């Protein structure tokens, strides 16, 4: 047997994987300082798993980030089981030295490719493609070359890589499409990366693709460490509220627009439920979304409860009947990259999670939404209180 033949990329299949429950394996997590990666690592550590965090940041910063997620969710965790390894997603071989690779794959593992460049600016296209597509290809290459038989590869993608023309995204592979079929290059890059993973699965790699909805704060505390998705909208509204309290602001949104919000604790629980199940090597990607989406009008209500601003979601046909105000144009500009997610209602298929139905996973209730929105706004207001009125600024100058 050659070196490669004993490795995951060539021979791993469903029969071998079923015999190796994920519960005991070492987990290799890249992007471990990100919101999802840190919480995933913390969850695994809490359950006694050994975790190798691949990180571009130094070990202390990475450990602090994961420890923060551990504290957030409570419980005692032995961080001695956490090892941090420096890596570079855009470097050949992930920039890992031979001895580091050998140590990384000294036993069957779960490899979690979570790292991604979440940049929506068109000018960052090349960087986004290099990290999200090239980086995924490199993780697959390293995994297939070095991971022992029985290892499994999990790719964290986005439910929104379905593109702009699909409002009922199913759990199936989507074919390659030009950038114009997506809301941004991030989605385009995730579609491309998924196809690279599909090819690897067809070639014998075992694992799953997990398409996340909008991951938000913890269902019980509301705490989050991310600025993406819904949080960009909240920040826009908050910025206006702190400087122009009491104003009425309309935001243009499809009348049926909804947000598929997934509390971080639920996202991690569902991701792990998939990983620890019996994987079908021919299975399509899994939509990791909640059963019921949140209407954007409901989000506006939650914002009005915690901010001194009258926020109203208005359908495009109604919006144009009244000239927009400067504040409304400011908010619209702020949503330049994320406002397109308000343009259509989505109804994601979630057959896999419905079938697995892991018990005890929190869902997005009205109370949880209020808690999550409230926690974020409180954090914003603590960090940057409203500026003093102009006359007070002048007096103190």
């Amino acid at each position: 047997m050659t070196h490669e033949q004993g490795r995951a990329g060539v021979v791993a299949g469903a029969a071998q994987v079923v015999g190796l429950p994920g519960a005991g394996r070492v987990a290799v997590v890249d992007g471990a300082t990100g919101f999802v990666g840190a919480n995933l690592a913390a969850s695994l550590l809490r359950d006694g798993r050994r975790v190798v965090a691949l990180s571009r940041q130094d070990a202390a910063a990475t450990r602090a980030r994961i420890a923060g997620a551990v504290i957030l969710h409570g419980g005692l965790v032995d961080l001695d089981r956490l090892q941090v390894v420096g890596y570079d997603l855009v470097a050949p071989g992930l920039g890992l030295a031979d001895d580091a690779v050998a140590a990384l794959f000294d036993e069957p593992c779960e490899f979690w490719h979570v790292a991604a460049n979440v940049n929506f600016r068109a000018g960052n296209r090349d960087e986004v493609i290099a990290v999200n597509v090239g980086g995924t290809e490199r993780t697959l290459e390293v995994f297939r070359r070095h991971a022992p038989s029985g290892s499994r590869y999990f790719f964290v993608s986005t439910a929104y890589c379905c593109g702009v023309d699909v409002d009922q995204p199913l759990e199936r592979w989507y074919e390659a499409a030009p950038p114009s079929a997506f809301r941004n290059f991030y989605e385009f890059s995730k579609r491309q990366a998924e196809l690279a993973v599909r090819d690897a699965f067809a070639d014998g790699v075992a694992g799953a693709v997990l398409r996340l909805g909008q991951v938000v704060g913890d269902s019980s505390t509301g705490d989050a460490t991310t600025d993406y998705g819904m949080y960009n909208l909240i920040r826009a509204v908050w910025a206006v509220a702190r400087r122009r309290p009491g104003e009425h602001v309309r935001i243009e949104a499809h009348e049926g627009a909804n947000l598929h919000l997934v509390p971080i604790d639920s996202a991690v629980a569902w991701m792990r439920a998939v990983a620890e199940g019996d994987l079908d090597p021919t299975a399509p990607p899994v939509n990791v979304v909640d059963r019921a989406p949140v209407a954007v009008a409901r989000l506006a209500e939650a914002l009005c409860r915690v901010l001194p601003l009258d926020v109203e979601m208005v359908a495009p046909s109604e919006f144009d009947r009244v000239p927009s105000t400067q504040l409304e144009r400011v908010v619209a500009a702020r949503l330049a990259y994320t406002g397109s997610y308000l343009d259509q209602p989505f109804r994601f298929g979630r057959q896999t999670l419905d079938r697995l139905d892991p018990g005890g996973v929190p869902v997005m209730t009205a109370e949880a939404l209020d808690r999550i929105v409230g926690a974020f706004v409180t954090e914003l207001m603590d960090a940057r209180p409203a500026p003093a009125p102009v006359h007070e600024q002048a007096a103190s100058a």
Partner: protein
Amino acid sequence: MTTLAYDDLLPRVISAVAACAPDDDVIAGPSKLVDDLGFSSLALLELVTELCLEFEIEPVSEEDLLSVSTVDDVVEVVRRALA
């Protein structure tokens, strides 16, 4: 409308930049938003919001946003918007 001079605008622009900058660093006119201060695409949009609210100007265009590199560039964008 009175045209504000660079020296009048810079402190207010720096204050807005500081409020949105992901990285703690000394901010001056030549500071590069992305390379020195860690601005992401979303942080740049947040900066646009702050500037619009601070100076009561219309949002800058995508083209203007892409041309912004340094704090001095931001001052120039604001100056043009106020002119």
